[in-house]
């Protein structure tokens, strides 16, 4: 499905959603499916998903639930940091309604530094680095004290190679311990912090190959 078709489909889904949630209209799906027969299956499935859960045999359901347990754990451990790291650029905060714009750690970790220096969002930064995921970079940035020196050096060297940012500048952010500041700025308890590099790697959504790469630098 090309992008235009995806966009059109999404607009149709949005119409079905609004008709249902706003006006309890269950029949718009028939009308749109008739107008766009090429999307008939997707439109009906979407409406059914809004209203009922498909039933699966217990073993399939259990498999899904176990996978979703791990996703929920990832969200609690580091997932929400993806949002704050991506969104917290100076441009974004200046356009937001000011509530508590200046958190103590703003601009004081590796990710904020990289975003400012490269003028890129986190996903674009991560894409250019080897064996990297957003979660891994976030966790390294938050817990440099558990990251081996060789791994930190590798990251700083890559940053230098890709963007010409001096090794020392980015390595500086990996020698500080932002944990205490972060914990102090948080009103609700966060998930347990990683105590070892292995724990940090497990939460980093790395592939097996990526994980063994970083373990070899241990």
């Amino acid at each position, binding site marked *: 499905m090309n992008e235009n078709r995806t966009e059109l489909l999404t607009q149709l889904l949005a119409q079905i959603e609004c008709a249902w949630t706003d006006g309890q209209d269950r029949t718009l799906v028939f009308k749109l499916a008739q107008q766009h027969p090429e999307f008939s299956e997707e439109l009906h499935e979407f409406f059914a998903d809004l209203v009922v859960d498909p039933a699966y045999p217990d073993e399939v359901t259990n498999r899904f639930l176990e996978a979703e347990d791990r996703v929920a754990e990832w969200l609690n451990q580091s*997932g929400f940091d993806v949002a704050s790291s991506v969104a917290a650029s100076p441009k974004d905060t200046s356009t937001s309604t000011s509530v508590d714009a200046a*958190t103590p750690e703003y601009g004081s970790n590796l990710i904020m530094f990289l975003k400012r220096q490269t003028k890129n969002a986190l996903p674009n930064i991560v894409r250019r680095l080897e064996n990297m995921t957003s979660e891994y970079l976030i966790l390294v940035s938050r817990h440099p004290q558990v990251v081996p020196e060789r791994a930190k050096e590798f990251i700083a060297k890559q940053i230098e190679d890709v963007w010409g940012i001096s090794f020392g500048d980015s390595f500086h952010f990996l020698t500080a311990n932002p944990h205490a500041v972060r914990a102090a700025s948080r009103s609700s308890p966060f998930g347990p912090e990683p105590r070892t590099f292995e724990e940090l790697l497990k939460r980093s959504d790395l592939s097996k190959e990526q994980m063994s790469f970083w373990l070899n630098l241990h």
Partner: protein
Amino acid sequence: MEQPIETEGESPLLMGQRVYEERYQRLPALDSDEYLAYLESATTADLPPQVLVRAYRQLPPKSTAAEATLRRLFRRFPNKRWEYLGPMVSYARRQSLIMKLDHEDLLSEGLRRILEVLHGERGKFAERSWHAFCQHELIEAWREKHGRRGERKPKEQQVEASDDDSIDPLDSCLEVPRWHVSLRPNDVNKIEKVAEQVLASIPDEFVKQVAREAWFMNSRPKVSGKIADGDRPLTSLFPGKKRHQIMRALRRADAQLVAALHADPTLDLGRDIETWLQQQGANSTRPSRKAKETRK
């Protein structure tokens, strides 16, 4: 105590917008402790995802309130039901079966992308159509990682093309939902009446026929396989149709019936049926009965 929102005389879509607007305006100040407490205590009906998204997009992304808002938006109840992500999770489950993908991988990629774009320009769309937004971002996340046709997927995960298009990977996985509740005689009459109205509104003749066979039997018929003497599986009633085609038709019809039962403000269904309806799925997307009562 919360006052009902006055909605008389408006078109449903305008009314929906106004309900969201009023729900949003009722939020405590976003930088207050009351807001954090409200996030903990408000019901799903009082706090639609569209309102949460709008609040989140107004907040500085690294603030405590922003994180608390996201945590509510992505909340999963102890019974493992996602409060606002039900339709997206259902879609991810289905796609993971059809495309032989890792469900955890697919879902976490989709959620990651939502977290990445929600505060940006794209997130505006979610203030109106949260579930369509979620599905769209899940698809985009998968494409970004694996390519438009899955060409970047590891070889062992690639779906082998089947020569037989009639084989559906969902075939062996989908089941007919349980359909048994204790009904008072009066409930049966009401539900049958609604079911007849729903049947009349379904334009697809095959879906209509499957629904008629499934809904008006003494017990919910099996789709296929051996069954007791005297009963016939649905596959035997529709010899030209595959099992998965019947399953999909039935799911389509069931969704219409559940929607109609939920949306009918004149129905005063017993607690047993309410419970059953709740069990059928993503109740967070349904109009709450309390809200409907205000429109009567």
